[in-house]
């Protein structure tokens, strides 16, 4: 375990809660760090990091290509496809690419050898550096149904060794793309808003990380005087509260201009620095109690 870098996934039950704020600022506060933007439908961490000279790689999946000269129209592939990505029209199968899950079964099964697998681009991963942070951004092509292949490619960028902590900015919600993003994480940070709706969304991700048996804690964002239903949820379910971020116009202004608060402002450097320290301790404690 010691050689593997600490990997922290930041998630929330809905968008706009502060996942990017928390993950970007944690990476910046860490100094040497790796940041992965797995919110591949609308990645925005790069707007803050502004990585220099990003290099872009294409992410492709395999889809079948049918040679109608060789195809005998036997329908074995259509009957096999559990996702209904193939249908016979005019005696030969046609493919619905966005429905295909790239299992490769049809190509294996075709008795006439009429199906070859071919690459289909579904998105990109760009890599660049911002200060001491390596920034990786996943982007799903518009119209594609699943971000999972791009997220898998991104997770492949996590260094297998070294001391630099890794921060994963997850997609919103608690569906497949989030599960993929947290599956290799050592620790999950749940970001929550101080509203009834926020507490409801916190409950969704709480359920997910519990199901995945991940160690986790909550960060309460946009804190103000008065009631905080998300805090009440944490107290009721014994969720450790790792930190509180105030509802602060200064932070809002820094953020809206694409600045990283932990790099620009002493108070936030300290806030995210101590949050980072707390996460490190919690993760270490969990690793120790696991062994």
């Amino acid at each position, binding site marked *: 375990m010691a050689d593997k870098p600490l990997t922290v996934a930041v998630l929330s039950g809905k968008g706009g809660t502060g996942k990017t704020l928390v993950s970007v600022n944690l990476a910046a506060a860490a100094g040497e760090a790796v940041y992965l933007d797995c919110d591949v439908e609308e990645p925005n961490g790069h707007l803050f990091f502004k990585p220099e000279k990003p290099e872009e790689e294409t992410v492709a999946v395999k889809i079948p290509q049918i040679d109608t000269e060789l195809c005998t129209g036997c329908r074995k592939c259509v009957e096999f496809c559990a*996702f*209904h990505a193939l*249908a016979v*029209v*005019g005696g030969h199968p046609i493919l619905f690419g966005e*429905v295909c899950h790239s299992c490769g079964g049809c190509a294996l099964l075709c008795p006439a050898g009429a199906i070859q697998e071919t690459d289909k681009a579904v998105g990109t991963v760009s890599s660049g550096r911002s200060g001491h942070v390596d920034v990786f951004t996943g982007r799903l092509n518009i119209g594609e*149904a699943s971000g999972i292949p791009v997220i898998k490619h991104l997770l492949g960028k996590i260094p297998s060794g070294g001391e630099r902590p890794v921060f994963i900015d997850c997609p919103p919600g608690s569906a497949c793309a989030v599960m993929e993003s947290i599956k290799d994480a050592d620790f999950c940070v749940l970001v929550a808003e101080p509203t009834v709706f926020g507490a409801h969304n916190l409950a969704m991700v709480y359920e997910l990380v519990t199901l995945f048996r991940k160690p986790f804690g909550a960060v309460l964002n946009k804190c103000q005087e008065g009631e905080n239903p998300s805090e009440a949820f944490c107290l009721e379910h014994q969720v450790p509260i790792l930190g509180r971020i105030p509802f602060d116009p200064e932070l809002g202004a820094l953020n809206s201009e694409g600045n990283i608060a932990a790099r620009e402002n002493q108070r936030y450097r300290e806030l995210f620095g101590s949050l980072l320290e707390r996460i490190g301790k919690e993760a270490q404690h969990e690793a120790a109690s696991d062994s």
Partner: protein
Amino acid sequence: MKITIPMNEQKLESGVCPSFGRAPYFLLYDTNTNESKWTANNAAESSGGAGIAAAQLLADSGANTLITPRCGENAEKVLNGANIKVYRSVDGTAKENIDALIEGKLQLLSEFHAGFHGHGG
């Protein structure tokens, strides 16, 4: 004319199912013999691609006309390939829709919604 209609129940007197791909049954009605046949839609429970599989079922059934309230682009591609004409259903029972079609009162369905709409996430 062999007409097919997505249905919730196996009754000519019941209404048209609001879903195409996920309808539990399809009615197959032959206007030459006035005979009704019913076929279960195995694709109804699929996590995705239900419309494609349902369209394949109809393409293989020998139907040449579909009456449905809505239909996706992917299913339309299969139906089109099988030369099945798609008409928009009106309020009322399956029988009333068949009569309306025969009287020339139904319009061709002109709008097809986005094909894959992510059931089962």
